[in-house]
């Protein structure tokens, strides 16, 4: 199984930060990832990703003035790959224990250096059978617009369904009851869901 994409480097009850093993090899925004622990598998959605210098004080400088292409920059300065790193933040949306999925926060945060795996289509399908996790997303304190994140998560999930549209309608209905008094926000999300 080569779904391992990164490793946890920062962890809290609601989410964790992971470093990708390969530069730029980041999971898609809104996609489902998991951390496998001895008793539980913790699921989360990617809510933020980015690439920066390893050392916070040393910012990269522009190098491509005399190069023909972007690849040429990396070819002429191979050390760059070591000096930069890609990271992604994950928002925990549930966990599985004994093959049963619970869509609320696990009792303990994930451990540092735990491996982060990209979930397979089957896992994604299994996880998206209920929509209780939407509440966790709504309550999240993230830097990206929440509407974008919600829409991205649901779009990702819809792609593995037998009937993507029906799935989105159902998800939309759950969202509607959660966002009862906030029609404008609902509209924004729904606008990003429809094909």
């Amino acid at each position: 199984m080569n779904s391992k994409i990164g490793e946890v480097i920062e962890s809290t009850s609601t989410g964790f930060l992971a470093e990708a093993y390969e530069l730029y090899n980041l999971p898609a925004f809104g996609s489902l990832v998991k951390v496998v622990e001895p008793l539980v598998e913790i699921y989360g959605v990617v809510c933020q990703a980015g690439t920066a210098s390893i050392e916070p004080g040393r910012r990269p400088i522009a190098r491509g003035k005399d190069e023909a292409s972007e690849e040429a920059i990396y070819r002429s300065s191979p050390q760059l790959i070591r000096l930069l790193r890609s990271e992604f933040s994950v928002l925990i949306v549930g966990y599985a224990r004994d093959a049963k999925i619970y869509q609320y926060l696990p009792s303990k945060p994930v451990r540092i250096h735990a491996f982060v795996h990209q979930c397979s289509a089957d896992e994604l399908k299994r996880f998206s059978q209920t929509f209780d996790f939407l509440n966790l997303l709504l309550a999240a304190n993230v830097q990206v617009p929440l509407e974008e994140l919600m829409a991205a998560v649901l779009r990702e999930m819809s792609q593995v369904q037998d009937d993507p549209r029906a799935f989105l309608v159902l998800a939309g209905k759950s969202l509607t009851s959660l966002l009862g008094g906030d029609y404008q926000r609902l509209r924004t999300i729904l606008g990003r869901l429809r094909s």
Partner: protein
Amino acid sequence: MTEVDKALGIVVSGSVEKGVDIRLDTQASVEDMVVGRYVTIEGAKRRFFGMITDISLGVTDEAIMQTPPDVSNSFTSEVLAGTATYGTLHVLPMLTIGGDTASIIEGPQPVKTVPSHFSRVSLASEQDMELVFGKEDAQRFWIGNPLDMETRLCLNLEELVKRSNGIFGKSGTGKTFLTRLLLIGILQKSKAVNLIFDMHNEYGWEGSSEGGSRKVKALKQLFAEKVAVFTLDEENSKRRGVSTDFTVRIGFDEIDPEDIALLRQTLNLTEPATEAVYQLRRRFGKDWMQKTLDLSDSEETRNLLLQMNIHESTFGNLRRGLVTIRRLPFIVPHAPVDAVKSILEYLDRGINVVLEFGRHRDITAYVLVANMLARRIYDSYQKKMEASMAGNVAPPTPLVITIEEAHKFLNRDVANYTIFGNIAREMRKYNVTLLVIDQRPSAIDEEVMSQLGTKITCLLDNEKDVDSVLAGVSGKNELKTVLSRLAPKQQAMIFGHAVLMPVSFQVREWGSQESYKEFTHGTHSKQQAEKDIKELFD
């Protein structure tokens, strides 16, 4: 439909007085709902039957109405349907059945409470409806199907004819069809006999369906043995190929002052002129009408009028009225055979009588004849009933008198004088009831209206008429909505004594050969029925 399809939603609020509100489930579309349909509500301890009286749309957030979603893509509206936007049913609970054995045996009872919060609501099943309206049997007669249902709505006619009833509806809504159906029912399934004052010649022999495209058969053709057709206009009946049993002639001496009083409006008589009739009757006795008409314009007459204190112009007014009556072809100085006597003979033998008016369709003839005959039949019934109370003889066969244009007999001004007012009010005790057919129920005296046991009404669209028909019914305002939404044809609403709760229904089909077969089935021996049908259609 499966059970799941029938689930509609849950109760979210309500009161006994105003009915309950039901929030529709997402999968139930408001467009499938119809006012007038029946639902069952599964309360925690009892089941309720109710009628959908209103359907409305709701939103959880006012903002949706201010900025509606883009309808070119159905996604958003599909998502919102049932969640942020939803349908609401307003249901008027009418009957309830308790959960324990005793209440099940007792059957449906009127509602005295409301179902608790979140009780499940579903469309009433065929079994539920059967529980309320019964099955077709020896006394119950199938008159139609509740709207959008297969169940047969059956009326207990034995019960129905114990009181006076009314059929209302504006012109062209199928009153005649409905009446014909009900008459057949009474003929088949109750012990009562009918006397029908058939103003438009529709009940005895064939009439035309609305639009005149096809002929529909009537009583005499289907139940020749049990129906006699009397006619006032033999020539007309013959021309229409009707086999009549009796030609009615009415003698001057059979007309009483009360009959003239009733005709006051149609004959355009003044108040003193009607008063004068009574004086003339006292003076001349039984032959008053002939004698009054014979009075010549002489000094002698003037003296006579002076004696009786009748003004000359009053007399002129009265005379003109009497001449109008005399002009009616079936009025003769002396009737050869007593029509009332023969009608009573037929009725006693259990044979239904249809009195055709032929070409004499003007209201003067109708009011005069109907009132006169009914009055004398009333007298006879009263006597027989009193005799039977004394224990000497069996009570007379229950009689149902059908009158059309009932407001002419039962309006506020004359209801107290006419025999029909009397029958409606008290004749139940003497085994005579009325079947009142009218298109202007608001013109009928309120007291009479309130005495009608069961009312069947087709579409009415005049506010006053609707009010008068529904007067005193619980949930009147809700029923109004239902009543005004009836289809203009073949749909009706029934409420009152004979049914446990108001119900709107599709009137049973009438006019095809199959329908005739269904009706005739069971009344004769099978062979007789087959023979009748063969004769009819050969």
